[in-house]
């Protein structure tokens, strides 16, 4: 697969848009999902994932072929989402949660431990619940937890994606895991 992407990137560097289309198709779900988990809003996620790919195309010549393309692409996408989160006004948070994705009340209840999900909880509900719990983490832990356990990047790669020292990645992943341990211990 790496070879496939490498070939496509070569063509893209020559300006071939249809080769880029294949690259987009290959990564679209991962990048869209990454943005969605970072932002918690499908419309914004699509918007930023689109933007991430367009930036990747425009800046393709600054991509070093010897490195991993996915790391570079995630870096673009992550930076965009972090910028977006920073620009949000505090009331936007509230707004988003009121309009919010369905079943938020249930999640809040679950999170408070008021009603523990039993054996009967459908697996989809559990998946949603986990997704929601991840989305409740502060962004700086969330991005690392996602990159490590959902996208399966190494800590070194995460340090490159986020452009922060490896030591900081480790500290944050420890804290992220602690937070999730507390949130998920009753599941």
């Amino acid at each position, binding site marked *: 697969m790496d070879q496939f992407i490498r070939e496509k990137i070569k063509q893209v560097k020559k*300006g071939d848009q249809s080769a880029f289309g294949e690259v987009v198709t290959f990564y*679209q779900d991962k990048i869209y999902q990454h943005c969605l988990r970072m932002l918690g809003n499908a419309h914004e996620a699509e918007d930023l994932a689109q933007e991430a790919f367009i930036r990747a195309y425009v800046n393709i010549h600054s991509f070093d072929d010897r490195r991993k393309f996915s790391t570079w692409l995630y870096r673009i996408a992550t930076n965009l989402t972090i910028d977006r989160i920073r620009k949000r006004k505090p009331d936007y948070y509230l707004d988003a949660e009121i309009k919010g994705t369905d079943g938020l009340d249930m999640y809040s209840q679950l999170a408070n431990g008021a009603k523990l999900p039993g054996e009967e909880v459908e697996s989809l509900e559990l998946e949603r619940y986990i997704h929601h719990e991840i989305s409740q983490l502060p962004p700086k832990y969330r991005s690392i937890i996602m990159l490590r356990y959902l996208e399966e990047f190494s800590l070194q790669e995460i340090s490159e994606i986020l452009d922060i020292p490896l030591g900081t990645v480790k500290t944050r992943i420890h804290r992220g895991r602690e937070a999730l341990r507390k949130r998920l211990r009753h599941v």
Partner: protein
Amino acid sequence: MNCNKETIELMHNYLDGDLTSQEECDLRTHLEDCEDCQHYFHELKRAITLIKSAEQFAAPEDFTQKVIQNLPNEKKRVKFMRWFKVHPVLTAAAIFFVLMMTGMLSSWNTDSELVVSKQEELVVEGDTVIVPEGVTVPGDVLVKNGNLMIKGTIDGNVTLVNGKLIDDRPIDSQGLMASAGEVTGELETVDRMFEWMWYQLKDFFKGVFSF
């Protein structure tokens, strides 16, 4: 949790694959004796397993298409090259046609000089080419940007471009008609650019197919 922070730190380092074998041994020994830490470690590992089972999302169906639509314009050369790969025959034909057109146009526009095919028998007077009486010109004759007067015989086709065939017959003398010039092949007069192109194309294809 009675145990010190150090053990928890070891657990996290273990999860990051950062433990020396000595540290790993220490952690294992401690876990065997400490139920609290066992439980804590179990919760950490379970959290990781759960995270991995988070709901998956797919990008909207038209995602790639939208990205491509919003890209800055592709270099024309690349678009052309890709088209070439998909339609090699059509492209070859198109390139050929473009070259022909531009070649023909420039030859049409730039040459206003008299051009005559090489036969020695032809006599040129000003802008008129004459086939003298009693003379037979072998082969095809081309006259461009000039007139042609045929008194003798042309043993082949005649092409007149941007010029006229001058009829030298005295109007009053019907008798001379028989002795007027003769062309054994076809006589073609071309006086428009479009026809000129058509003529060249025909000529080219004749050449191609005679191979």
